Structure formats: structure tokens, C-alpha cells
């Protein structure tokens, strides 16, 4: 089993060569932008992970497992969809939360429901960008078109989990 970090850095190296062969300046520019983004995100990511860790200790994992564990089925999927749709944050909070939920026995289909609802409804993103740039009417249509999506995604995830024996 090759370490996933090695694979990722391998991909990064190949892409880096492609960019550098086109334009050296673009290569330097990309590395600079990646470093700055990393520095910009890291403090918030660290704090979010420590926070998520404490909250996980405070909420017993049996409770999380009971609410959105694999065996919670459709009720858990509905609950996870609701939680995900209400998450008022970007990825630097949402993903540490998911890591904690997973380590506290949340089921895979339920996590898929959570992430899908968070991705499509993301109301922090909707309010900051989407409404301002595209207008309420369009956003309304998109939201209505997306209501069933967490359910669809988690149904497929549930079917895959059953076939593959995952939980």
C-alpha cells in the first residue's frame, strides 16, 4: 500500500512540470498562491479541529452513532441532511466536523447526506455570493431543484455500502 501523500505529491510534481514547461513564471506564481492559501487557512483549520475534537468528547459517540450511525437508516439520513443544510461555514469547519462524526461512528450514507446537503444548500455561500451575483429568483429555482439531492446521493451511497459491505 503506497502512502496517499506520496501519490498526491507525485501528481503535484507531474502537474508542476507541465506548468513549468509552459511558463516558468506561472509555475512560481502557482507555488506562491498555494503557499499563501495554505498559510491563510492553517490557523483556522487547526482551531476548527481542536474545537471539533472537544465537542466530540462532550457529545458521547453513542449519541452520534444512535442519531446518524449506519443503523439509523433513513431517519439518520434525514437528520444528517438537516444538519448539513444548516452548517453555516466553509470547508475548514465542515470537514473537521465530518472527520469527528466519522470517528464517532456516523454511517457512510449519513455522512454523504450531510456533505451533499452542506454542498448544495451552503447558505453562507448563497448569501455572500450567489444571491448577490445571480439574484433571488435564480437561487430559488436552484434550491428547489436541489431539495431531493441529499436523499438521492445517500440512497446511492446506501446501495453501494450494502453491496460492498461498508458501513
Amino acid at each position, binding site marked *: 500500500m503506497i502512502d*496517499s*501523500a506520496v501519490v*498526491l*505529491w507525485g501528481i*503535484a510534481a507531474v*502537474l508542476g512540470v*507541465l*506548468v513549468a514547461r*509552459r511558463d516558468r513564471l*506561472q509555475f512560481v506564481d*502557482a507555488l*506562491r*498562491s*498555494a*503557499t*499563501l*492559501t*495554505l*498559510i*491563510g487557512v492553517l*490557523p483556522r*483549520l487547526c*482551531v*476548527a*479541529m*481542536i*474545537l471539533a*475534537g*472537544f465537542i466530540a*468528547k*462532550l457529545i458521547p459517540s453513542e449519541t452520534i452513532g444512535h442519531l446518524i450511525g449506519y443503523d439509523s437508516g433513513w431517519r439518520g439520513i434525514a437528520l444528517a441532511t438537516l444538519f448539513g443544510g444548516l452548517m453555516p461555514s466553509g*470547508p*475548514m469547519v465542515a*470537514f473537521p466536523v*465530518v472527520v469527528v462524526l*466519522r470517528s464517532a461512528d456516523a454511517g*457512510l450514507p449519513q*455522512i454523504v447526506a450531510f*456533505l*451533499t446537503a452542506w*454542498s*448544495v444548500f*451552503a447558505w453562507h455561500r448563497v448569501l*455572500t455570493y*450567489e444571491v448577490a*451575483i*445571480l439574484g433571488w*429568483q*435564480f437561487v430559488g*429555482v*436552484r434550491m*428547489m*431543484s*436541489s431539495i*431531493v*439531492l441529499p436523499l438521492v*446521493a445517500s440512497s*446511492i*451511497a446506501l446501495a*453501494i455500502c450494502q453491496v460492498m459491505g461498508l458501513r
Partner: protein
Amino acid sequence: MTHPRQSLTWREVFGTTFWIMAVATCIAGVACWNVKGPDVFRESFASDIDLLLFIAPRFGAGMVIAAFLQKLVHRDKVARYISEGAGIKAVAIATVAGGLTPGGPMTSFPLVRALREVGTGRSALVAYITSWSTMGFQRILNWELPLMGPDFVLLRLASSLPLPIIAGLISRLLPPERDPAQQPQKEAAQHDR
């Protein structure tokens, strides 16, 4: 956060979000210490650091890959592909394009607006946003892969593949937008219906 960066200020790194989260962390930490005891507090801290050390090299690689891809994939090309398609074909192209568009919301929403202005149908726009938000490569590389691992990413991607098409098709059943300012041009209505 995810658009190409040229500069970074302290205010951006340690802005309001950081302090709100820092205060919440202190409160949760004190609560954890009092309710569960110092041992659980230390254990929680130690496992956070383990996780961070595991994630850091993958996280860094994800950021670098995303930055290089931003240089290789051009937004204008993506826009041209979507606006050229029509009907269900446009929805399918928009789905692929959404997953491939680099950048965060501040680059992709202006792109959607530009597409609407050149007459792209609503269902393709809805499919594009759905695809970008559920399967955008940048978020997967930066966050999901390092934190959740490749197996989970594959499961979630497999589960999300039909979503943009479904959302695009549902949006066709909804009544058209009324405000003429919001209405796509006539050509778009033909694409859609």
C-alpha cells in the same frame, strides 16, 4: 480563499472567523476539562495533533495540485464549452465543466452570470452549480481527500454523479423566472424547452 492569491494580510488570516472559533474552542475546552476531566482533555488534544500531522502533507499537496490545475485549466474555455451546447447536451457538458472548474465561489458564480448573459439555459446553469458544489475537484483535493481518504472520496463521487443532471431536469419543470432583468435571453428559452 481559493482564488489565486497574490498577497495575504494578518487580518485575513486572523479575522473574525478565527476569533469566533478560538473563543468557542476555549469554551469547549473548559467544558471538556470540567465535565470529562483533564485526562480526556489531554487525550483530545493529542489526537487532534496526530490528525493534523497526518493531514498536513496531504493538505499541502492538495493545495499545490489545485494551484497548478488553475494554471492549466482556463475559465474562459470552460465557459465556451457550456454556452455552445444545447438542451440535455448542455446539461451534460455543464456537469463535466462544473467538476473541472478551478476556484472558489468568487470565481465560479461570476462565470455562471457570464454564461447566463450569453444565453445559456437555466437547466445547464443549475447543473453547473450543482456539479461544481458537489464534485468540484478543488474542494476534493484541498479538503476531502486529505481529511477523509480516497475510499470515501470515491464513494461520495459515485453517489453524486447523477445529481447535476437530476437538478438540471427538475429546474426545467419549475416555472420560468418572471423578472425580465433576470430572464435569460430568448435563445436560452429555446435551449431549455
